[in-house]
C-alpha cells in the first residue's frame, strides 16, 4: 500500500473542496477501497473521510418517496421498516449481497461506487484498461466466466458487482449529488456508464462531486417483486446473473413491469422497450419468455460466459413468475 494523507471533512462543502485535489478520494465504509489499496489497484494520495457528515438518515419525501442518506449503512437500509414495507425489492437485493459484517460497514453511496470484480482488474501484473487506460483488456480473450454479455466494448467487458444498484435501477431511483457547481439529480439509468472507450470511468459522477442521497419514488412495487440472484455458492459470491423484477398487477393483467439485470453488464441492465411489451398483457410464462428474448437482444458471449445468455433468459422468466405468484424464492 502506498502512503496517503488522511483528513476528516466536517461538512459537504469541505468534502467537495478536499476531494477536488489531485489523487484525492472519499472514504466511508472502505469495504472496497481499502482492499483495492492494499493490492495497489487504487492509489489515492489523499483520503477524505466523510463519515462525520450527517448524511445517514432515511426519511420520507414530500412526494411520498423515501430519501436514503448516502452514508446510511447497507444493513440499516435493508432492515429499515419503511424500506421493508414499501421497497422490499431493495431490501432483498441488499441482503443478497456481501456478508452481514460488510453490510454493517458499507454505505449506500459507496455501494453504487463499487469497482468491478474482474480477475484482471485485481491483478496489477496483467493489462487492464479499467485499471490502466490503454494497457489493453486481458479478459476479452482470457478467463471471462464472470464477465459481461451486454453493453460491452472492445476495451472492457467488466460487470458492475452491486446487487443494491440492480434494485435501484428497477425502482427508478434518483441519485442526488453535490459538487463545486452545486447540486444535481441524476436519474439512476444515467448514473453508471457503459465501458465504451473510457472503461476507467464507472459512473458519470464528476471528480469533485459527492453523493448525498438516493431518492426512491413513491411507487415501490411492494406487492409483486423478486430479486433472483444466481451465483456459484449460496452466499458471499457475486452474481453470475441477477434479476430485479417488479410488477404492478391488476388481477392477471400487467399494468407495469420493471426488470433490471445484474452481473451481465457494466451497469444494471434495463430495456424499457422490452418491459413495455408486458404492459396490458396477461402474466403468462409465454409473455415472460418474449420479454426475456427482447432483454437479451444483442447479447454477446465470450469464451467462458456464453452460458449467461441462456441463464439470464431463464432467470428473467423465473423472476417474473416468482414476482407474479410471490412464492418463496428457491
Amino acid at each position, binding site marked *: *500500500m*502506498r*502512503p496517503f494523507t488522511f483528513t476528516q471533512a466536517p461538512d459537504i462543502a469541505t468534502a467537495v473542496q478536499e476531494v477536488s485535489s489531485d489523487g484525492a478520494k472519499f472514504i466511508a465504509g472502505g469495504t472496497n477501497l481499502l482492499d483495492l489499496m492494499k*493490492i*495497489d489497484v487504487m492509489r489515492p494520495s489523499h483520503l477524505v473521510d466523510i463519515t462525520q457528515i450527517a448524511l445517514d438518515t432515511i426519511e420520507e419525501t414530500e412526494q411520498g418517496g423515501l430519501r436514503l442518506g448516502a452514508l446510511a449503512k447497507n444493513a440499516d437500509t435493508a432492515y429499515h421498516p419503511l424500506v421493508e414495507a414499501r421497497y422490499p425489492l431493495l431490501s432483498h437485493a441488499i441482503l443478497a449481497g456481501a456478508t452481514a459484517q460488510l453490510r454493517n460497514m458499507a454505505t449506500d453511496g459507496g455501494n453504487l461506487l463499487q469497482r468491478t*470484480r474482474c*480477475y*484482471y482488474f*485485481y*491483478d496489477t*501484473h*496483467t493489462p487492464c484498461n479499467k485499471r490502466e487506460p490503454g494497457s489493453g483488456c*486481458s479478459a476479452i*480473450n*482470457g*478467463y471471462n*466466466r464472470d464477465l459481461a454479455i451486454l453493453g460491452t466494448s472492445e476495451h472492457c467487458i467488466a460487470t458492475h458487482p452491486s446487487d443494491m444498484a440492480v434494485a435501484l435501477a428497477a425502482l427508478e431511483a434518483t441519485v442526488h449529488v453535490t459538487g463545486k457547481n452545486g447540486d444535481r439529480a441524476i436519474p439512476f439509468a444515467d448514473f453508471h456508464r457503459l465501458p465504451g472507450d473510457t472503461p476507467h470511468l464507472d459512473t458519470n459522477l464528476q471528480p469533485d462531486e459527492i453523493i448525498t442521497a438516493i431518492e426512491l419514488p413513491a411507487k415501490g412495487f411492494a406487492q409483486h417483486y423478486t430479486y433472483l440472484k*444466481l451465483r*456459484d*455458492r*449460496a*452466499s*458471499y*459470491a*457475486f452474481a*453470475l446473473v441477477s434479476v430485479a423484477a417488479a410488477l404492478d398487477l391488476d388481477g392477471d393483467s400487467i399494468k407495469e413491469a420493471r426488470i433490471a439485470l445484474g452481473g451481465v453488464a457494466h451497469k444494471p441492465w434495463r430495456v424499457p422497450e422490452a418491459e413495455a411489451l408486458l404492459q396490458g398483457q396477461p402474466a403468462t410464462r409465454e409473455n415472460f419468455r418474449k420479454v426475456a428474448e427482447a432483454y437479451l437482444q444483442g447479447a454477446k458471449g465470450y469464451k467462458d460466459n456464453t*452460458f449467461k445468455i*441462456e*441463464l439470464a433468459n*431463464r*432467470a428473467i*422468466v*423465473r423472476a417474473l413468475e416468482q414476482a407474479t405468484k410471490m*412464492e418463496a424464492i*428457491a
Partner: protein
Amino acid sequence: MKENYTGKPANRVDGRAKVTGEAKYAAEFNVPNLLHGVVVNSAIAKGTIKSIDTSAALQLAGVVQVFTHENRPGYTWLDSHYMDEDAPPGSPFRPFYNNQILFSMQPVALVVAESFELARYAALLVKVEYEAQPHETDLESNLPRAYTPKKYKSPPPTDPRGDADTAFAQATFKVEEAYAHPAHHHNPMEMHASIAIWHEDGKMTIYDKIQGVQNSQKYISTAFGIPQEDVQVLSPFVGGAFGSGLRPQYQLFLAVLAARELKRAVKVGLTRQQMFSFGHRPATVQRLALGASAEGELEAVKHDAIAETSRFEDYNEDVVIWPGVLYDCENVKVSHQLVDLDVFTPLDMRAPGGVTGTFALEVAIDEMAYQLGIDPLEFRLKNYTNTDQNKGKPYSSKELKECYRQGAERFGWSKRKMEPRSMKEGHQLIGWGMANGAWEAKQQEAAAKAVFSPDGKLTVSCATADIGTGTYTVMSQIAAETMGLPLEEVTFKLGDSTLPKSPLEGGSWTVSSVGSAVKLVCEKLQEQLLEQARKMENSPFKDANPEDVSFAEGRMFLTQAPAQSISILEAVQQNEGQPLVAEASQKPDKNQKNYSSYSHSATFVEVMVDEDLGTVKVTRMVSAIAAGRIINPKTGRSQILGGSVWGIGAALQEHTVMDHRLGRFMNHDLDKYHVPVSADIHETDVIFVEEKDEIVNPIGAKGLGEIGIVSIAPAIVNAVFHATGKRIRELPITLDKLL
C-alpha cells in the same frame, strides 16, 4: 473401574486458548526489534530476470535491505541440500538461486524494513524487468507429452493383474469415459508465515507454520549449513494446513536468509494472494474403462491417470490404487503418468490422490450400475473385496459393509427409485447418490517423552503438530487413560524441534504413530512407578510384575486384588522429590506386514437441482465411517464434518483457474476462489461404525484426517445424475454445466 478417556467426546484441551486468542500462531510471536519482510513475486511464468532495480525501495528511510538473486549470500547451492522430508524426486526449488523464472508468482525479491507497512510499500517500488520465454501450463493440450517418471514419489502403479484388455474387450457391459479434476489450492485460514530470530552466538529460533518442525529444522540446517542443534523450530499452533505445511515454504527460507545476513529477527508472512504461489492439488485427467458381466460382476478395470507436475520435480500421488483397494476384480491394469509444466510443484492436499482417483472411479462405478440396471449399493456389494488386491494381503479389519448398512438405513436409501429424474418438488429435481472410499492407515516410527513430577502433573511430549485436528487433546486422552490420571493433570507438548522425534503430521497417521509412542512411554513410566512403589514400606507391589498392575482413577493396584492399591502420587513421591522421566520410540510391529490396513467410508447424498437454472443444493448427507477405534468422537466428528464440507466444495465450487496465455492462476483470492459458506451446508450426518483392529497399531485407531472427504464429491456427482439424468465428468459442477 478403569477410567476411559478415549472413546469419549472430550472438549479440546486447547479450546479456551484458541477462542481467547491466547494460542499464538507463527506470525504472532513479535519480538522486540523485529524486521518485516515482504516478498515480490514474478509477473511471468517462464523466462529470465533481465534486471532488478531496488534503488527506489532502498532510498526509503527504514528500508533495511532488498534481497534478490543478485545479492543473496553464497550459501550451499547444492540442490540436494534443499530436499525436505516431503520432497518429490527432482531438484527442489531454490529461492533466489539465479535469474531463471520457473513459474508465475515465483519469489524474486524480499524487501526488509522496520515496519510491515513500509516493507509493503517498498515492495511496490522494486522494478523487475523480465525476458519472457514461451511457457506451457495447460495439461489438456500437453497430454501428448505425458511421460512415466523415472522415480515415483508415492509407490509406483502396481503391475497388471490378469488380462484387463482382453477382459474389457469381451465384457458384456462396458463403461469407458474420461474424468477431469481441476487444480485446487489448500487455502488454510492461517497464511504461511515464519519469524527467524538470530542470536548473538549464531543460533536461531524460528517460528514457522509447518506440519513438522523437525522437517523445517533439517531443511534450514542443510540449506544454510548450520548445525541442526543450532536451529530450534517452534510451531505450537497451526491454523489449518491440509498438506500445505508438509514442505517448508519459501517464506521460511527467506526469513532465515534475511535474519542471518542482517543479524536481526525477521518476519516474513505471505498474503492470501501469495498462498497461490506454491504447491497445489494437481490438475489430473483420468480414463476409466470398466467391464462387467450381465450378473454385475466386475471383469475388467483399466484406470489411467495423467497429472501435471513442475519442470523441476516429479510429484505424483495415489490416484490409481483405488480399484485394487475397493473392488474385487481379476483383470486390472493401471498407469500414472506426468506432464511437466511451468508451474510450481504440486503438493499433497487433503487425501492426495484419494480425492482425485475416488472421484473418477466412483462415478464410473455408478455409470456401470446404471448400465446394468443394478442399484449402485447392490453393485458395490456384489464386487466387495476382503483383500487388498494391490498388495495381495487381507485387510487387518474392514467394516465397510456395516458402513453401507448403517449409512443406507439412516439415509433411507431403500426408498430410492433407480430411474433418474424420478423425484421432484416444484422446480427442484431431487437426486440421491452414493459413493464409497478408503484411506490407508499407516503407522510411522515416532518417539515420546514423559515427565511425571512429584506434584502429580504428567507432561508428555513429541515434536508433532496440531494443525487443528485435535492432537493436543487426543494425546492427552491417551496418556491420561494409560496412566489412570485425570485429564486435567496431563499436558501434552508439541511443535518444538527439540522434542522427541516425530514423523510429519500428515497422511492421517498422527494418532496411530504418535499415539502409539505416547502409550508406550506411559507404559515405561508405569514400570518406573512400580519400582518406586516397591520401595515403600509394606508395599503390596513387592513381588508384582508390570503385567500384574493396573492404573486407574489416580491409583495403582494389583489387577487380581484391586483393594491392594496406593495412590500414583505416593509412588512418584518416593523418588526423593525428583520427577520420573521416561523416553520411548515406537516402530510399527512386524506383523503389520502381513496385512493391509485402510479406513473406509460410505457416503449417501441428496441434492436438489433447479430444472431451469442449474443450481445445486446438497440438502442431506450421511457419511458412515469405519476407522478403527475413535479416540475422541467429538474432534473426530469435526474431522469428518470438515471433510464433508470440503467435499461439497470440491464437487460444486473449487477450481483454481489458470489463464494459459499468462501462465498465471487468476482467481487468487477468497473472493474468486470459492469454498463453501455456511449457507451451502445443510443436514450433515456422521456415523462411526464400530471396528476392532488389533493389528493396525497398538492404539487400534486408523486416523480420520482424510477419510472424511474422499467419497463426498463422487456421491454428489452421482446424485446430480440421479436428479437430472446428466452425467458430469468434469469438476466442479457449476450451474452452467447443467443448463
